[in-house]
C-alpha cells in the first residue's frame, strides 16, 4: 500500500481538487484492492489497476454532481474561438515556456498544484484526464457526457486559465516580467 498510496491519492486529488474527498476515495480504492488481494498481489500491473480504479471511482464521485457540472460547462464554455483566446494562448505558452522553468522545483510544484486546484471543475477535470491520464479527447467526451467540441474548448480554456492563475501568483510572461520585474525573494515581505 505504501508503494502506491501517493499515486492513488494524487490521481484523486488532481481530479477533485479536494484533499478530504481524495482521501475518502483513496481509502475506498485500497479497500477494493484488499477485496481482490489475491489477483492484485500477483499481477505485475497492480499499479495500473489501482490507478484505473482510482480514476473511475473519482469520476463516479464527480458524476453524482454531473448535472451541475454539465450546466456549468454549458454556461461558461463558449464554442466560438474569439480573438482574446488566441492572444491569451500566446501569452499562456510564454508563461509555461519560460517563466515557469526559472523557478525552483518545489516552488514550481506548489504553484502548479495551486493553479490546478483553482481551475473551475469543468476545465480541470478534462485537463487532468488529458494531460495526466493521457485519455484521448473522444474518450473524455464520452466519459463526461459532453460534446467533443466543448471538451476541446474547455481544455484549451483550462490551459489558458491555468497560465493566468500562475501569472496572478507573481509569475508573468517574459515580456511582463521585463516591464515589471518582480521583487527579489530577499526583499519580499
Amino acid at each position, binding site marked *: 500500500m505504501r508503494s502506491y498510496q501517493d*499515486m492513488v491519492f*494524487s490521481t484523486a486529488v488532481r481530479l477533485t481538487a479536494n484533499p478530504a474527498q481524495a*482521501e475518502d476515495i*483513496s481509502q475506498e480504492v485500497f479497500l477494493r484492492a484488499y477485496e481482490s488481494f489475491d489477483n492484485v498481489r500477483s499481477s505485475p500491473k497492480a499499479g495500473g489497476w489501482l490507478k484505473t480504479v482510482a480514476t473511475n471511482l473519482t469520476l463516479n464521485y464527480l458524476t453524482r454532481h454531473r448535472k451541475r457540472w454539465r450546466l456549468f460547462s454549458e454556461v461558461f464554455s463558449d464554442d466560438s474561438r474569439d480573438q482574446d483566446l488566441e492572444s491569451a494562448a500566446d501569452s499562456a*505558452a510564454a508563461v509555461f515556456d519560460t517563466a515557469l522553468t526559472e523557478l525552483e522545483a518545489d516552488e514550481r510544484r506548489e504553484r502548479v498544484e495551486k493553479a490546478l486546484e483553482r481551475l473551475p471543475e469543468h476545465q480541470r477535470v478534462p485537463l487532468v484526464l488529458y*494531460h*495526466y491520464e493521457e485519455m484521448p479527447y473522444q474518450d473524455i467526451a464520452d466519459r463526461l457526457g459532453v460534446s467533443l467540441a466543448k471538451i476541446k474548448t474547455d481544455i*484549451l480554456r483550462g*490551459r489558458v486559465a491555468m497560465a493566468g492563475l500562475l501569472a496572478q501568483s507573481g509569475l508573468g510572461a517574459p515580456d511582463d516580467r521585463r516591464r515589471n520585474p518582480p521583487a527579489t525573494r530577499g526583499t519580499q515581505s
Partner: protein
Amino acid sequence: MTSRDQTDEKLERLVSQVLRDQPLRRAPASLENRVLGELAARARLPWWRRGVASWPAAVRIPVIAGCAICVPLVWIASLWLAARLVSITRSRMAGPLTTLRDAGQTFASLRAVTTHLIQSIPHEWLVGGIIASATVYAVLFALVAVGYSLLYPRPDYSKVHLT
C-alpha cells in the same frame, strides 16, 4: 498548419511537459491507518453481516440452494394470492352489481310498457290528438293576446316630453 494550430500545439506540449514533471502528491499520513482500521472493523463483523462471498461454504451452499428453491415457490404463492384476490373482489362486488342489474331491468320494463301503450293507440287518434292540441293552443294564445291588449292599454308616447 495555421499559426492558431501551431500556438495550440505548442501550448499543449508545454502544459503536458509541466504537468507530467510534477511529482506525486504525498498522501496524508492518516490514510494508511484509516484503511487498516476499516479492514480491522470489517474483520470484526460476524460472518452474516459480510458479503455472501465471504460466508463459510457450509452456510453459503444451503442458502444458495434454498434461494433457488424459493424462487418457484414465490411464483406459485404469487399466482395463488392473485387468484384469491380476484375471487374475493368478485364476491364483495356481487351485491352492488345485483342492484344495478335490477335497476336496469326496471328501466327496460318501463320502456317496454310505454312502447306497448303508444303502439296500442290507433294512428288516426294520434294525428287527431296532435291537431286538436295545436288548435286549442292557438285559440288560447289568441284569447290571451286579445285580453292582454284590452286590459293593459299601451301608453301614449306622443304626450311624453323629452327633457
